[in-house]
């Protein structure tokens, strides 16, 4: 067996392991939880966070985007929303911000929560769109590998084999398969990010509520 044939066998094995169907491989239980074919994550796709699942403080319907008109508040929102800001520091900053008489504290709490919710919900939506984009690229790449493997097989079945062509295409398949596998690992990691943002939003909202009590 020549080098090209070895690569072809390896590509077949990888194809069978990586995407037995038309898409990424998922366990049947996980796949059953999916309703959207453009969504590659085991976690169910929830496009938007729900205020009601996070916040039981005073209603924020009247706040709108008022938080954006206050530069100090806007800066605080950006700082607290950033995942590099440790939660302990965020809690201290929230406690330092929500001060004054009860009406003032309530007003600040509402605006701060509204700003954080808008910002983090947007961040999360961007991540979800990014996951969908990667998934589409992955499907396109899977199709390309499948097509290249078919071509490779045809080349090898010919009585007169063009070894240089076979070798070049086998290298291409090998490279594409490696990219596919790397991307698959990335998707698994990125799928966790919406939950990480939900956790942060919930933790910040809880701190705002505590600062109000």
């Amino acid at each position, binding site marked *: 067996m020549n080098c090209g044939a070895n690569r072809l066998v390896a590509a077949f094995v990888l194809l069978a392991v990586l995407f037995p169907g038309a898409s990424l491989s998922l366990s049947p239980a996980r796949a059953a939880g999916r309703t959207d074919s453009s969504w590659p994550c085991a976690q169910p796709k929830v496009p938007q966070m729900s205020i009601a*699942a996070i916040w039981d403080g005073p209603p924020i319907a009247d706040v709108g985007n008022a938080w954006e008109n206050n530069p100090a508040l806007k800066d605080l929102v950006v700082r607290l929303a950033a995942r590099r800001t440790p939660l302990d520091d965020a809690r201290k900053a929230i406690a330092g911000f929500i001060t004054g008489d009860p009406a003032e504290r309530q007003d600040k709490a509402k605006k701060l929560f509204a700003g954080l919710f808008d910002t983090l919900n947007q961040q999360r939506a961007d991540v979800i769109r990014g996951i969908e984009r990667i998934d589409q690229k992955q499907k396109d790449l899977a199709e390309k590998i499948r097509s290249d493997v078919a071509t490779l097989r045809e080349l090898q079945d010919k009585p007169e084999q063009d070894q240089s062509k076979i070798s070049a295409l086998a290298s291409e398949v090998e490279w594409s398969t490696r990219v596919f596998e790397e991307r698959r690992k990335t998707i698994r990691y990125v799928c966790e990010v919406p939950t990480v943002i939900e956790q942060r939003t919930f933790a910040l909202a809880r701190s705002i509520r505590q600062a109000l009590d």
Partner: protein
Amino acid sequence: MWLRFTLVPILSMVLSGAASAYTAYVSNERSNTVSVIDTNKWEVVKTIKVGQRPRGIAYTKDQKYVLVAVGDDDTIQMIDTGTNQVVGTLPSGPDPELFVEAPDGKTLYVANEDDNTVTIIDIASRAQIGDIQVGVEPEGMGISPDGKVLVNTSETTNMAHFIDTSTRKVVNSVLVDARPRFATFKQDGSELWVSSEVGGTVSVIDPVKHAVQQKIEFKITGMRPEPIQPVGINITRDGKTGFVALGPSNHVAVIDGVTHKVVKYLLVGQRVWHMAFTPDEKYLLTTNGVSNDVSVIDVTSLKVINTIQVGQLPWGITMSQQ
């Protein structure tokens, strides 16, 4: 002098509320640990390394052990509550998730999702003494206060199966809403409550007539129905108040035990699944799988009064009775 030495510890116990100090054990599904919480301090005082994927967890009736189902190890581990060490195992079937003890504390019934059986274990001899064929993918387990009726819910057929524990036969089945997850009796045996995670309801079943007498529905203002997924249920001993954990809605519903109406929704932590009362029923602790914490609900004021960080993906919880 002796008076001072005697009074000081007593006074400090009274002031600190030590008389009501209980111990809660929380299984952390992703960390493969069990967190031990002191309810006097509301703090984790110890973390115990256990097997893979711990979920169902319960004290034995004699309080000597905490049993924890470690699904990926296909067994139930026994934690000695004196030393907080894993000291043995019970022979469950494959992938145990939930189990229930007979009221006499001698027998354990374990749901085995993979082979559609309930395994019966004698706790003292740590041996399997039989099994019962039940519906497809058995999940929730409840037992009547007199120990005569075992109820097992089937995720796939959406049924609650009533099993006579003396004959070990299914005597009746009741259809409930989609994906029944948890079943519990009122203390007086008058009602069985079964939660349906996908259906979004709790069925209140008459355990004598084997009929659904009422369905509790949930509606949280501003929230779509999909995240409202009922799982754990705890009912006070007097049967007057029920609490239902509503999964990714992050809320616990408080139910009037007589009218079966929702009285209040409490925001706890993220993805709330299971709960346990302190024995005096002053507090209810909830496991919140996504926020990785336990919320403490004051049962009288119906307010969340504390949050305790535990391990990754807290799942089940059990409370000492003394």
